[in-house]
């Protein structure tokens, strides 16, 4: 079978963000493969290593030229080849799921991995929307997964807690913490990744337009008071904090 791993490239969590023309400006910002998507790439490799008949692990990224860095990371982890739909156009997750669906069909994938929540647009919609377009089931927030024959078994988070599940392929799985520990690419694998196929597609090929219009972005800074209390005298510090909680924040009686 073929596995498709959808990845996004996002600013590093510690990167300082700024707004230019009411959009988040990423030029000059350190960008990395979204940690949530990394779990999917790792899991595809582990399924193969555990003996599943995985022919190809294909990576898909949609976005500007700089996405190539994230793609190379995924290839260096061990994915076989990649497709980059290179575009600067904003596409919301519902629109993007159209591209993922077309690629999944073309590539004859029977398993699609995507991160549980993208850390750039803080969305959880891509996996479920892709599954709906493909007419497949999906399981979101998966933190344990194994394949026996055509059956995926695993565990995932739900509203009330957690649930164990079984589902037949084909399926869409969204990944998260606990599923695995993604490997670091080694230097030889980074070198090898440079020779792996990276196909560039233009957005036109997919006939997709955004469903939503981006209006504005604003940095969220809530001014915090930053009142520091010295803890060398713990009793005095505790008394001061209780006083603040009681009379200023008014959260305790």
């Amino acid at each position, binding site marked *: 079978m073929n596995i498709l791993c959808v990845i996004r490239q996002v600013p590093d969590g510690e990167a300082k963000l700024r707004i230019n023309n009411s959009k988040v400006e990423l030029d000059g910002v350190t960008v990395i493969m979204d940690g949530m998507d990394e779990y999917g790439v790792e899991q595809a490799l582990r399924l193969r290593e555990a003996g599943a008949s995985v022919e190809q692990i294909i990576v898909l990224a949609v976005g500007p030229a700089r996405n190539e860095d994230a793609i190379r990371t995924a290839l260096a982890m061990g994915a076989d080849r990649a497709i980059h739909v290179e575009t600067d156009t904003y596409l919301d997750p*519902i629109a993007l799921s159209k591209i993922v669906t077309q690629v999944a069909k073309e590539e004859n994938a029977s398993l699609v991995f995507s991160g549980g929540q993208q850390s750039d*647009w803080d969305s959880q919609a891509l996996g479920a929307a892709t599954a709906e377009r493909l007419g497949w089931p*999906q*399981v979101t927030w998966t933190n344990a997964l194994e394949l026996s024959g055509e059956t995926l078994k695993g565990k995932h988070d739900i509203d009330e807690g957690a649930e164990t599940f079984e589902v037949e392929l084909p399926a869409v799985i969204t990944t998260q913490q606990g599923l695995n520990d993604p490997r670091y690419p080694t230097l030889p694998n980074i070198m090898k990744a440079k020779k792996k196929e990276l196909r560039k597609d233009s957005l036109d090929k997919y006939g997709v337009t955004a469903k939503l219009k981006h209006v504005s972005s604003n940095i*969220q800074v809530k001014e915090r008071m930053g009142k520091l209390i010295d803890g060398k005298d713990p009793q005095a510090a505790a008394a001061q904090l209780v006083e603040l909680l009681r009379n200023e924040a008014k959260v305790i009686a």
Partner: protein
Amino acid sequence: MILLVAEHNNGKPSKSALELVQAARDLGRDGPITALLLGQGLTSVANEMSKYAEQVLVADLPELAAYNPEVWAAAVTQIAQEGEAHTILVSASRSGREYSARVAVKLDAPLLEDVIKVEAQGNALQGTKYAYLARVTEVYESDAAVTVVSVKPGAYNPAQPASGAGEQYDVELELPQSRTRSTGKVIEKTTRVPLTEADVVITGGRGVGSPENFSKLIEGLADNIGAGVGATRAVVDAGWRPYGEQVGQTGKTVAPKAYIAVGVSGAVQHLSGMGKSKYIVAINKDPEAPIFKNADYGIVGDLHQVLPALIEATRK
């Protein structure tokens, strides 16, 4: 019409359902506010819900006893189409964010996801949401005839009952077979206030040092002041606390009136789950810890000394 899917629990509408009613009222768009109830044994929740919505559609079916994304998406889509809904509101719970994406695809509609505010601008809808691990807010616009909106729990105040009782209707649905089999559930139970509803949350980080310290110090303080208990991922990964207590990007999002972070460094992935708290208090021995930049009150000190003093000071 405005269609809202009302979540419910133990025969009562969930808080999020009443928040959706408020969001629907604030929108002030044409048509009645219609609440859809999916589940089994819905009589009491339907009666309660009709105090808030002009119409209550009741799908009381054994196939709906447990949530399933494919089944929920099919149900909501059918009702939305039959009722010619222009706005479909669902709660941005884990399940809501999942099936709403499927509904959007089925209806070929845009999805305004996890919004903290939704407003009508003429015929268009604008939704405000967090992005970039809640470091940014973004506004998106839909000018489509039908828009699906998921609303972040806690973003709206729960609605007050309206005067008069809404009409109730039983609905028939054609539902697909679910292809995912649930083979077991672990329901989170806590004797404390649920994290997402607590006015005060006390979270312990790796600095707390051990599961025993966690029980003694973090739970000890929580017991005294009636707080919910949270944990960082480092603590959960170490197996000291259950995942259900994790706050952050891959855990829960909370916004209590006061958030007390003890032995927590303040990584962005953690901040994204608690950064919207009204007051943030940090207790950390390292004056350079990033959490202090995001705190209203901070105690620079050893938690092994400060927490016992706090427990003493709050003893009832």
